[in-house]
């Protein structure tokens, strides 16, 4: 149990996927313009992460022992089909959200966070339950980063900043400061 709590907080806060590993930067900068959209994008990511994690575990235990060189190809196919599924569900249930997420919804497929999670999980030899907790933690971490970023960006819309700095350059500086702030959590689990 203690181990699971450690995995969860490690993935979500201490080693935040976006701010410490630079995974999932495209949606982090792409859909963080609005608070509401950012939050729902985070939720969609959590869903895809959990399904990917369980599929990756099954694939890795039963299939890939026979053919390790197929790891990358099989993972990316699982992710692509999961994203297709999520896309269909969201399109059916909430067309407005579907429009708001736009191109970034199918791009979850090429979100490094998803494939990164599957690869990390296999490298660290997590069990099934550990993998699921890891996926939820990573997804929560992504959502936290997205929401904080969106909140700051909404506020800076009206701020007076040098014209050249506005846009991408400033977003990177904000992200750098956020990343700096998240480094402060590093001592949270000092014994392990």
């Amino acid at each position, binding site marked *: 149990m203690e181990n699971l709590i450690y995995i969860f907080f490690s993935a979500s806060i201490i080693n935040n996927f976006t*701010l*410490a*590993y*630079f*995974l*999932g*930067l*495209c949606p982090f*900068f792409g859909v963080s313009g609005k608070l509401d959209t950012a939050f729902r994008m985070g939720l969609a990511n959590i869903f895809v992460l959990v399904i990917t994690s369980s599929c990756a575990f099954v694939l890795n235990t039963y299939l890939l022992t026979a053919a390790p*060189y197929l*790891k*990358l*190809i099989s993972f*990316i*196919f699982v992710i*692509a089909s999961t994203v297709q599924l999520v896309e269909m569900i969201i399109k059916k249930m909430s067309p407005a959200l579907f429009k708001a997420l736009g191109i970034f919804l*199918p*791009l979850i*497929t*090429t*979100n*490094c966070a*998803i*494939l*990164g999670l599957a*690869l*990390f999980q296999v*490298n660290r030899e997590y069990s099934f339950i550990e993998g699921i907790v890891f996926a939820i933690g990573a997804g929560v971490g992504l959502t936290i980063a997205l929401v904080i970023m969106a909140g700051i960006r909404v506020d800076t819309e009206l701020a*007076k*900043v*040098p*014209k*050249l*700095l*506005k846009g*991408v*350059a*400033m*977003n*990177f*500086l904000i*992200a*750098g*400061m956020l*990343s*700096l702030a998240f*480094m402060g959590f590093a001592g949270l689990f000092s014994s392990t």
Partner: protein
Amino acid sequence: MSNQPSRFNDELVKGLWKENPVFVSALGLCPALAVTNSLINGIAMGAATFFVLFGSSLFVSLLRNIIPKPVRISLYILIIATFVTVVDFGLAAVLPEIHKALGAFISLIVVNCLILGRQESFASKNPVSASLADAIGMAGGFTLALSMIGGVREILGNGSLLGYPLFGDNFEPWVIMILPPGGFFTLGALIFTFSWYKQRVENKKSDSPDQETTFESWVV
């Protein structure tokens, strides 16, 4: 067909500077920041991406008339994943140290938006020679960007370049630059420099030399 060579050159050069994937289009950011804590890692990552982009552009543009539209993305990813697997195993055999330093990020080349983006927007619509020129230019621009980020971070954060110390013993390394926040700061500063330079060139073209120097013109 007389403009063939000039077009080849155009496609080659545009990726290096005018449409630089990292600085201008902000594509492929994950590897651009994650592995660039030293110059050599940046170059290695750039070279690996170069190989994958070149190979997959070649195949996608050769097969562009055969691939059915509805399943094209999956097929592109399959082609890309094959090349990435080749690079992954190749690096592990030839340069095990670099392979260890780059870690999972070699496999993550599959999900580099730059590569899929070039297949979808260029290689699937253009003949082989133009696609290859585009791939070389884009991958070159990517490598250039990664080397710049890696170089800046290594100099500031470690006081060395390619492992050779640059400053005397009194240099206090700015450790934060090789940690994650440094990546964001460096890239932010480089993008800022790029857009500043562009603005300057444009101002010079429009013959208004005194416009750029005042601080007021910078503030919206």
